[in-house]
């Protein structure tokens, strides 16, 4: 199967190699945002544990999944990787908004237009009856391209706050940062941590609690360390600013 294509992979980093028992809970997460922001790369990284060498345009929707263990419970995370081109939104992707448990909005930090599209994506979600009661997160992708950043952390943070979403800046390509800790989470895979955070949140089913960024700094919400080891889902949703 082609690399950018559909894949169900269970990398060994999490306990996952056996087939799920019949009662495995499923968390269905839809990933949306403009074409080219890196939705396919992010979902591929989470399901396959690496950056795809070649991705292709997503037509309508691709499906990826991964089995994870949270607090001793096996959970299947289904990612619906949608097409960014506008024409697919209305009539085509509709079907896949049904019974969604969480929404991941993605923009490209090197592409201001993709950030400006976010209100339209949020509106799109509302039209599919996915309002603020459904956990939603905002992901700014391609942080590895430090020299071409067009969307600053502060404006993204403001936007995220205004819509009651946590913000994560990351890179599907190099999610461990460049060693300067600017967006990484230590040795763990930051992209994985983001999706796991959503999963923890869903498992705990507690309302979204955000820590306030320090006044004036507009700090990016970062994942608390050690979150990967499981532990309390609600606490890991809480974020620390950097």
């Amino acid at each position, binding site marked *: *199967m*082609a690399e*950018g*294509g*559909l894949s*169900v992979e269970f990398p060994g980093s999490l306990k996952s190699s056996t087939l799920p028992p019949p009662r495995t809970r*499923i968390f*269905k997460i839809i990933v949306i945002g403009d*074409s*080219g922001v890196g939705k396919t790369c992010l979902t591929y990284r989470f399901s396959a544990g690496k950056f795809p060498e*070649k*991705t*292709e*345009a*997503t*037509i*309508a*929707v*691709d*499906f990826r*999944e991964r089995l994870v263990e949270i607090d001793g419970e096996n959970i299947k995370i*289904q990612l619906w990787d949608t*097409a960014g*081109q506008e*024409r*697919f939104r*209305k*009539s*085509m*992707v509709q*079907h*896949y908004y*049904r019974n969604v448990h969480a929404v991941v909005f993605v923009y490209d930090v090197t592409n201001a237009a993709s950030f400006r599209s976010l209100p339209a994506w949020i509106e799109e979600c509302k039209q599919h009856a996915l309002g603020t009661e459904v956990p939603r997160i905002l992901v700014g992708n391609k942080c590895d391209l430090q020299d071409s950043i067009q969307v600053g952390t502060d404006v993204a943070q403001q936007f995220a706050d205004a819509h009651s979403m946590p913000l994560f800046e990351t890179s599907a390509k190099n999610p461990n940062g460049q060693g300067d800790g600017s967006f990484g989470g230590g040795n763990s895979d930051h992209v994985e941590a983001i999706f796991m955070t959503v999963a923890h949140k869903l498992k705990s089913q507690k309302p979204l609690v955000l820590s306030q960024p320090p006044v004036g700094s507009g700090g990016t919400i970062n994942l608390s360390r050690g979150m990967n080891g499981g532990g309390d889902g609600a606490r890991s949703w809480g974020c620390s600013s950097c």
Partner: protein
Amino acid sequence: MKRLTRKKQSAGGFGVSENGSATREPDCGRKQKLAEIHQALISDPVDIETLRRTAASKGGLLTDELRRKVWPKLLNVNVYDLPHKPGRDVRENHKDYNQVLLDVRRSMKRFPKGMPAAERAVLQEQLIDIILEVLKRNPQLHYYQGYHDVAVTLLLVVGERMAIAMLDTLSNYHLRDFMDPTMDSTKHILNYLMPILEQVDVELHDFMIRAEVGTIFALSWLITWYGHVLSQFKHTLRLYDFFLASHPLMPIYLSATIVLHREREVKQTECDMAMVHHLLSRIPQDLPYELLIAQSQELFSQYPPSLLAKRAALQSRKSLSISTFQVFQLSTLHQRPDSVLQRLTKAQGSTTSRHASRHSGLEVALPRDRGQLWGQGNRMVKMAVWGLSATLGAAVFAVAQTALDWGPDVLQQLF
């Protein structure tokens, strides 16, 4: 309830022909077919019926060389009167430019594995140009992600200028419904899928309805003619032979055939939207294409679109691809063979001289700004490819492709 017989594909035999009856000898089959195609090509008018039949029957059009001769006939394209190479302005102020760029830059997998990066880069630039050129000529058409998968298949076989002509015709007929401002017409075409399944296997149909899987799993198959999902180019070519010679709905009949082929797998899957979608959208790479093609044709004649269209769900909307198909087919009936076309075109004042009056040859062959765009790639290769496709036309370009297997050293010897 199953009325479609599932025939085992005989390993070497000619298998089932398009009407599901004739079986021919494997060895003389190919030779006979070659002769038949050549005869059809030199008939005056061109024997389009035979070309269609051979394109659909086992093995399709056999070689790329034949494809370059037959494909244009299937679309009523005069290879001696091809559109000009797009100028630099084709990229200016085009609303779809960014999306096309993004999609083509990511389409690496569609190019032959061994192709040097520099050559691929040249072809990718051509791909962008031909897509934008066709869109510019047809303001009523709208780009969709996946259109580039169709365009690249044509480009790789017939070269830039013939690809423009073919893509133009395809876009106005077979692909027309996909190119509306919205995808409502595309959805309408997808709506044919379940009724076909229902005719053949009610159980499978009901299972899929219960799973609420929908038909989006087949969307990329339909709008790219499977180019987006097949990893082996030879399979894509085989299907393009078939679809170029068929009714615009044939890709949906093939989708139905593929689902029916996987009936057991589907029924064994958990009856759940995600699971069934996941199973079906991953197309097996080892499908018995010849068998499936024959079965699709069988399905088509047993349950033609007109019969299915009586169903309520299919009455709400009119398909341009379907309604214009007859006109399109009629237009292909009176084509002159290439030898005659060449003479006629020469008599009128050849395309090359018309071409030259508009551009000075060399400028077209190697636009300076693009030459810089490619950076430090193999300059010679770029020149060779540009030169071939731009000035000598698709025929020579094609020879270089097949005979030289993309080796830059060999290409250099040409110049």
